[in-house]
Each structure stands twice: as C-alpha cells, then as structure tokens.
C-alpha cells in the first residue's frame, strides 16, 4: 500500500507484503495447523439405551450431518452430500421440510462476530453454548455449577410453554423465555438484545431440538432393521417417516395453546378458600410434593425426565461421568410462598401450569389432556387453585392438619 493511500483515510488494500509477512509469522506460530471445525456429538444416552453398534453410530452421525449440516453451517453440507450419491434427497429438501428459516439459523450458528452495522453472528456460541453445549445437550462447560442444569433440547421437551403437556412450545413461548429469563436460575434475560437476534436464537433452539429428536428416531428405527442392515437413505424414510412428523409437532403447537375460560364470578376470598381446600385435597394432591404449607417440602426425592433417564439405567456415578453426563440430581418442588414464578406470574401463566403440568417434570396437569376431554379438575376449580397459589406469598403460615415436617420447621 502506498504512502498516499495510507494517509488518505480511504479503505485500502493491505493485502500484499504485509499479509505475506503476517502469514509467515502465523505459520510459525500455529505450526501450519488450524483447529478442526466443531461437530455435533452423538447422543450417548440414546446410543447406550438403543445398544447401537459402532457401524450404526457412524451411519447415524453421517445421516444427521447430511440432513442438518454442522454447527458452523446448518443445512449447508451440500458439498459433502453431493459427493455421496447414497442420498436421493437434497439438503434443501430437508431444510424445506423442517420449516426453519436458514437466514436466522446462519445468524445464530458459527463463530462469534458482528458486522459494521452491529448485526451479530454466532449468537448461540456467544450467549448459549457455555451452558447448553454445542449440540444443545445441556453439557456446556459451566453446566455442573448450575441448578437446575441447563436444558437438554434434544428431547424436544420444554418446561415453559403455553401449550398442552405433550405439545411443543410455540415460537412466542421460546421467545418469552429468552426475553424474560428465568428468575432464580442461571437462565438470563436477553431483553437487551435486538429482537431479530432473539428470533435467530429461537430458531436455532428449534433446529437443535429437531436434530436431537431426529437422532433419537433414527436410533428407534434400528429396532425395525435386521442385524447389519443399514438405515435407509431414501426420501420416503428420512423425510416422510422421520422429519415430517417431527416438524408437524412444531407447526401444530399453536393449535394446542391453552385458552382458559373466564374465572368464576365470586369474591376473591371465597375462591381462595376453595382453592385452599382443593390444594389440601387428595383429588388435586398438591400437598404430596409442595407440602401442606406449600413450602415445597413434600416429596423431594423425585427426578425430572432428563435425570430419570440415567436413574432408570441403574448406572454407577462413575459410569454416568464416563458418558459425559452430569451427576444425577433430585428435582425439588417449588416453594409457592416465595412469590417467584419462573414461567410467568400472570394468572393465565399459573393456570396453564396447573392445567397442563410441567413437561419433563413430576408436576402433573389436572386439566383435560386434550380439548373436550374431562380433566381431574374443572376449569373453575383450576381458577380457585390459581387464586390460592397467587395468594400464598401474602398468606400467613397456618398449619393445617399434621404438624410441619422437619424441613418445614427449618424453613420456618
């Protein structure tokens, strides 16, 4: 670059001698080597549960790469795919079937950077990967310290949602969690991020979840194959039997949003009193876990589904560690007198929690499992419980029935 250009203040081409010298230095410093691009790992739990052999593990890894690409390039492994004539379906078809927005995925994937306008890239690695891991397995470096553990997206189960228990969360549900965060946990609020960046992260979470569920379905598909038979690579199987049904569950989520009826017209005190009775009753059975005083001091030795998967395998702690998993933890019921509602404090939010339960946890739903069916409690009764639960932070502790447990006494 000439001296005139140097002082002109205009963009200049510095690529010449300077760059040559730089790269000579680089080669010396890095030993000509560069780090391998990140890859998604296999779901070790699914592989162990399905007793998948090495050959099938490699095939599943290859199929997933062909379908979903890599952490740097979602749905962009076309070059590799073109070289592999075994697939009779393009990655474009996988992308189209998934219903995901490639532009958003590209914004969230890859290494961290931003352009001159401040638009970020690599958002997942910037904000999420240190807890949730590169593949969304909840096994990022910081995970052991966090309580609760970071969510493993690969099962497609999410706690904070407005939909029925078995349904996927809506886009707004995921956006809301990212925007509001979850108080009392390590899940931050990203409200200071531009909305398009939160949107991109939501899309990437869906991508990781879809990919993780696809992996589990491929493992399940092995049970229908003869020994040594490879997994089919045709469109009918990969798209028709695997990806399409999974995508449909995400697309149908809006249909399963819980829309409660209006609360019954009565004095709040009356509704709260009815709620208190229901809370203590065997019908709702809230006291089993939350305790008679709703201090969360009932059953405290249960597990969520992410931990229970390892409990069911009856593995030693050393075996669990060898699988790269975190030590098993019990799930503790919420102390409802704190007035902290992790998934939303509005009456509507609490109604949905009680109606549908919390996916992946022992918290059951007491509303009808499907619209039109009969639930354990009627909508009016659920509203009474909502009013009672929301009154608890302002309620004086008044033991009912048996004396407080040891845990309760400690808390009192």
């Amino acid at each position, binding site marked *: 670059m000439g001296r005139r250009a140097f002082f002109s203040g*205009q963009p200049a081409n*510095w690529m010449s001698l300077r760059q040559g010298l730089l790269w000579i230095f680089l080669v010396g410093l890095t030993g000509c080597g560069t780090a391998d691009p990140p890859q998604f790992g296999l779901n070790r739990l699914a592989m162990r549960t399905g007793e998948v052999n090495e050959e099938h593990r490699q095939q599943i890894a290859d199929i997933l790469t062909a379908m979903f690409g890599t952490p740097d390039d979602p749905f962009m492994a076309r070059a590799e795919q073109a070289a592999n004539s075994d697939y009779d379906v393009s990655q474009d078809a996988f992308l189209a079937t998934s219903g995901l927005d490639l532009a958003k995925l590209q914004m969230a994937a890859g290494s961290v950077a931003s352009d001159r306008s401040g638009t970020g890239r690599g958002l997942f690695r910037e904000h999420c990967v240190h807890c949730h891991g590169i593949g969304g397995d909840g096994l990022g470096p910081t995970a052991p310290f966090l309580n609760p553990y970071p969510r493993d997206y690969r099962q497609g189960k999410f706690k904070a949602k407005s939909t029925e228990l078995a349904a996927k969360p809506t886009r707004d549900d995921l956006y809301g969690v990212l925007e509001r965060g979850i108080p009392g946990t390590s899940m931050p609020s990203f409200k*200071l991020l531009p909305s398009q960046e939160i949107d991109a992260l939501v899309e990437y979470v869906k991508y990781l979840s879809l990919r993780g569920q696809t992996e589990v379905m491929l493992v399940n598909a092995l049970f229908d194959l003869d020994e040594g038979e490879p997994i089919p690579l045709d469109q009918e199987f990969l798209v028709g039997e695997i990806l399409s049904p999974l995508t449909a569950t995400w697309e149908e989520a809006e249909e399963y949003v819980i829309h409660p009826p209006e609360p019954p017209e009565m004095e709040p005190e009356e509704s709260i009193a009815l709620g208190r009775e229901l809370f203590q009753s065997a019908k709702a059975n809230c006291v089993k876990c939350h305790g008679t005083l709703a201090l969360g001091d009932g059953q405290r030795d249960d597990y969520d589904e992410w931990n229970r998967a390892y409990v069911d395998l009856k593995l030693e702690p050393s075996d669990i560690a060898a699988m790269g998993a975190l030590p098993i933890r019990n799930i503790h019921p919420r102390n409802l007198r704190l007035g902290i509602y992790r998934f939303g404090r509005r009456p509507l939010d609490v109604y949905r929690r009680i109606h549908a339960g919390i996916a992946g946890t022992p918290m059951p739903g007491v509303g009808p499992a499907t619209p039109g069916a009969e639930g354990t409690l009627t909508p009016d009764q659920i509203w009474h419980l909502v009013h009672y639960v929301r009154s608890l932070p302002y309620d004086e502790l008044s033991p009912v029935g048996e004396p407080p447990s040891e845990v309760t006494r400690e808390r009192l």
Partner: protein
Amino acid sequence: MTPAADGFAGHSPFITTFLNIGNYVTQQQHSSWPHWWAVLLCATAFPLIWVGGLVTTHDAGMAVPDWPTTYGYNLFLYPWQSWLFGPWDLFVEHGHRLLGAAVGLITLATACAVWRAETNSLVRGLAIALACLVVFQGVLGGLRVRLDARWLAQLHACVGPAFFALCVTMFVVTSRSWKNMSRTLPSEGSSGINSAASLALLLAYLQIVLGSFVRHASWDMLPALFRATVVLHVVLGIGLAGQASYVAWRVLWRRTSPRPQQAAAIAVVALLAAQLALGVAAWTVNYGLPFGWGQHGWLAGHLVTARGAWQSLLTTAHQANGSLILGTTTLIALFAWRESWNAGRESAPSTAVLNGATS
C-alpha cells in the same frame, strides 16, 4: 561493576546488576524523564487492560474482521463518527485498538527515554523487553482477529497483565525511591519477605492465567475441567489473599519499609478484599447465585440479565482488578528483592568488592 565481581551469593548476575542501579545513580545526574514516561505508561496500560476486558465481556473481538486495518481504513483514520456513534461492539474493539496503539507509542517513547537517561544495562534491557512485548501483544491481538482464534484471545489476555507488571517494574526502577534505596540499610526482621513476596507475585499471575481459562472457556471444554479450573481459581484466590496479606503484614509491621512498599501493602489488601467480592459478584451476574442460594428466600427472584450494565461492569472489574493486584505485588516484590540484595551487600566479607562494584 561486572555482575561476577560483586561476589554476593544467592543472586543471579542479572538480578545483581538490576538491583545495583543505585550505585550508578551516585555517579550521575538523575533524570526524571524515564520515570514520568513510566508513570504515563502505567496510567494508559491499565485502562487498556480494562477496555480489553470489555472486549472479552461483550465478545466483541471479531467486531472488526480485519487487522491492522479497521474495515479497510488505516487504524487512526477510521471515521470517528462511525466509531463513536456506531455499534457498541465496534466502539469497544476499535477503541481497544486505538488505546493499544497509544500504549505502544508510549512504550516506545519510554524505551527511548530510558535508553538516553539510564546506563544500567538491565533497565535498558527492560525498556527493550517492554517495547518487544508491546509489539508482540499487538500482533497477538491481530492474529486473534485474522485467525478468529479464541485461544489467541486467551493468550493475549494473559500477556496483557504481564506487560502491565513490567510497566510497574519500569515505574519502580526509574523512581527516586528505588534509586535512593542503595543507601538504605535493611532493618532487622526483613529476611523472608522476598521469598514470601515472590510467592504472592507468582500466585497473582497464576490467578490471572486460571481466570483466563474461566473467561475464555471454549465450547468444547469439558464440564469437569471447567469445574476443576473454577475450584482451583477460588482456592488459589483464597491462598493468594492469605499470602499477600501475610506479606503486607510483614511490610507494615516493620515500619521501616520503603514508603511505596508500605502503600502497596495497604493497597494490595484492599484490592484483594475487593477482588473476592468482585469474584462472587461476577459469578452472580453471569451464572446466577452460587451455592444454590438462588433457591431460597428473596434471592430466588434474582435474574441474570445478559449484556446488562452490572454484568459488564463487575465482570470486567474483576479481571482488571486482577492486573492491579499483580502490579502491587510486583512493586512489593521488587522492593523486597532489592532489600534482600542490600542485605547481602552489607553482609559481604570485603568492602573492596563494593568499591569495585561502584567503580
């Protein structure tokens, strides 16, 4: 004097030459220019570390994809409106580069001033080392961008505090207090401070290195390794606090310690207390409350806000304060080493050697 001529056991020739500066001072006019340049260097290097910390906190290292240019512009000619009123990441990264360039120029000026005014070969060597290190550090920062390599960012983050410690060293060895120490005799009870101070200095830097592993944790770092790193960081932090407090107590208890060393001893205790609090705070604003506190009482309402002001301020402050602790322990250790050397000189068997040393 030749290093071999002093005959003091227990000191390497290099250190002996370095610590013998005062003998040269008696032979020549003292120039304060190198010291004032060193003051300016420290005063600019510390903000540079702070801004560098901001770059890491906001993951803004790749906000400018080219280097040494900024979006094709010469570094100094990038439109200031685009810098000041542009995106935050760009503001921080380009600002870090500008400040880094300024520190580089000040380092070179300091080196020139030292070269002109000092005759001690090791002080001159220190000046050259500073100049080389600042260039190396700049290139490291550039390579981090050109290669998009996070491990280079971590190395860059470890070299920065080492450079700052060398700046403090230059600040000390060009000071009048240091040069006057050649005439100060050690007092009773001084023995042992130098080794204790050396250990504190080593721990302070080790803490910075461990902290860099926490700050720059890669996506593929094993959770168990991260946990071990954090636990070690906490344990060593407590160890450093104990060791540095012990050194500070020894320095202050004697009452005859040099005043800069006394001031540094008080400062390091205050900085360490702040650092422990900042460490807990930095963890809390990034990952929530530690030790399961987030499950209880009103603490259950604690919410982490990504990229919030507290997260930015406290995390960066914890990192920058680590460099301040390194700087103060460096100062304490330098005076302790010097005193130890003086003690060795006083206990030397022959005054002829001393005479030879000053001739």
